[in-house]
């Protein structure tokens, strides 16, 4: 079964539940310098004197044509045939950050801990066991969803 992530901006309020759930699932600790594999942003715009807020949850969208797979000089990224997710093995990562530069969502993060790039794996193992990714599971407003292709 192959899946894709869907983000419905109209349902998101940038509440950060997805970010925290990701850190809980992946044992990411900001005090150790870790970054979450998702981030929430509130973008405020003034249009013709009127305030407008955009609420976003941003992370790896496991793109169909994934830039990271294309540009990584060490070949760290690959497509998981079972889930369709973009997974990685960062053994050979040289932390050149090309994946980050080319990613439209700026999804890969540099881990102080490992000295290498890391990113969301779609909670692939959970998905293979019939569970939702942590961010999808927690989202109070169902702004994040995993859809079967």
């Amino acid at each position, binding site marked *: 079964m192959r899946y894709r992530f869907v983000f419905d901006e109209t349902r998101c309020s940038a509440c950060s*539940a997805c970010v925290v759930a990701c850190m*809980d*699932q992946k044992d990411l600790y900001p005090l150790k310098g870790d970054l979450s594999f998702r981030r929430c942003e509130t973008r405020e715009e003034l249009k013709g004197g009127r305030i407008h807020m955009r609420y976003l949850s941003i992370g790896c969208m496991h793109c169909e044509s994934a830039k990271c797979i294309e540009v990584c000089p060490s070949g760290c990224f690959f497509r998981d045939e079972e889930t369709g997710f973009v997974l990685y093995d960062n053994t050979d990562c040289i932390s050149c950050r090309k994946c980050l530069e080319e990613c439209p969502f700026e999804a890969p993060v540099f881990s102080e801990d490992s000295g290498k790039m890391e990113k969301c794996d779609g909670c692939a193992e959970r998905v293979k066991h019939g569970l939702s990714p942590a961010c999808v599971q927690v989202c109070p407003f169902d702004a994040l969803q995993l859809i079967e292709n």
Partner: protein
Amino acid sequence: MDEQLLKAKIPCKETGIEIRHTMCDICTPGLQCGVDAYVKDDVMIKLEGTKGFPSNNGKLCAKGAAGREYQYRADRLTRPLKRIGERGSGQFEPVSWDEALDICAEKFLKIKEQYGPEAVAWVCGYSKWLRPWLHRLTHSFGSLNFITESSSCHCSEVMSYSTIFGQFMRPHVQGAKLVIAWGVNGFANNFAMAKGLMMLKAHGGKIIVIDPRYTHTSEKLADLVLRPKIGTDGYLANAMANYIIQNHETDDAFIEQYVHGFEEYKEMVSHYTLELAAEKTGIDIDTIVQVAEMFAKEPKALIQPGNGLTHHLDGYNMHRAILSLMVITGRVDRPGGYFPAAETFCHSPGGFPGREEEFINSVKPKHCKKPVGFTRFPLWFDFINEAQGMDLVRQIRTAEPYPVKAMAAFGVNHKMYPDSEAFLEVLNELDFIMATEIFHTTLCDYADIVLPVKTSYERSEAKCYANKFVFWTRPAIPPIGDCKDDVEVITELAKRMHLNDTLLEAGYDEGVKYIFDGSGIEDWEAVKDAPLPVPAPNAKGAEPGSYLASGKRTPSGKIELYSETVAKYQDRGLNPLPVCADQDGGTDPGSYPFVLMTGARIATAIHSRTTGLSWLRSQTKEPVLKINPEDAEELQLKEGSMVRVSTKTGSLVLPVHITAEFNCKEAGLYHGFDEANANSILAAALLDPYSGFPAYKQFRCRIEKEGGAQ
């Protein structure tokens, strides 16, 4: 393979990870979401919401999702402590539970003997789950000085509803077609409420947001947004009422049959012209008319008022003025209107007759001194069965009308009190302080005995939900260190003080069974074993019409626009009608040109309870002072510039966040942070004279660029 499964925290035989059902108790008892704790070797390694749970159905907010970090915070208290240094020094030695509890019991009894039972204040902050037991203990001890942080939250809205309807009511959003979300933004603090409005909108309903701030609800759901100047909502409500009456859009038959004091009310609101409301609120007349028309013409229009409305100097009347709009249009006790809210247990509705009130009041002392706050806020006691804690600091300091010499503080945080430093200082004047806490807080440093208590994941706790369900957890994980739960502490104190209260001494389980007696549940162990809340056999939902058919518990027996209860206090300057008072935050606008709103909810914090969590702090700008772009330009401030915000009480230095969420000359600051404690600069004396509530949302302040203009 096993390592991969373990890393992914897959609950299965290979990993040894099992899911245990528990609940979150980080925010209020209203939600208390069901939690699936992923547990390995008795350690919680992950948590998520319980699917099918009535309040959250598998979902969690950011705070609830951070529960594991909350559980294992480094500053968890792990053993009873006895203070050996000066108050506030933080010098303690560990003692056994027996020794700690014996000391507390002996001290409380000694103070009771010397000064009377009222000299001990039994105070409850968060968690709230223990309240019925602490309340009963206070009564059995011989006093009415049971105090909660609801002295600054929730109780004022209970007063307001009770003044008009004789009891607490709740807006029935599911039945409405137009909702005025008045000072309500569930996206930040109650996702179930926000989802209710999203659902309404998806089904073609309309939503009007009235809020000085531009909120998530304004952006995502509003068909119309009104942003009155802070503290002027009462003018808007009364002018809408006047317009509706002038245009004959009231429900006259309803008023005739059920309402008391309409003529007096009509005369009062006749002074609230559209012009006056426009001047006070800053909203143009056409928009006020538009809202009044939309509200009056839609039969299923509902006002959902936020609790924050009560945090103004005339918050009680402001809230009452807003509720009155629903009365004159007859939207009471019918789908989409205000429904009677039966709080069966710990502020939650079980849908069956509960015995919480009996549990608490059957041992209420008949002959004792009046509770704290009685002389200053008598109206409070017509509606609320606990002391008004906002008067506690004054009474300790002055010993008027009688001395308070000891405090049993259950989860009390000084940062909750306006002029928080004064609260800490006055603790030095007490002979004895006992504190139960989950974390080592500043207040603990002032206590003589500190008792470590369990989190909701570590204890067993009963709840009822949604007019239908009963839930009772078993501990999901063993406690950290040597923690007990708060009710064990209360039960032990009752025994050691020889209060001869057998039901209290029987412990938590017996108390729950007593209170839930009418639920129809017989096999309580089966409830504890159930993965989800179980329906109570005797539960039945609210029946529309039953409230109107039975007698209203107001003095007149009708729904009171003119309050006969408030009328008793006219000599103290209280008005039986919901009039607006011109409040300017107690200081002159010239020296203090900004109005500061503190405590408007954010999604990544709840009071001071989550400020120690790195997961949430990594997502939180606060503490920041939110100001409008125009004000920032005038003050030559950039995003993150440091400012000094000053009131007559004190000042704070902190960075600014520039946002049009706040209007010009208004500013916002979330409370609970040590680095910049909003409540430390709010004057303790500026309280709503009706309810005693602090005006958290309405203080005048000055904002200056720190370090001078550059």
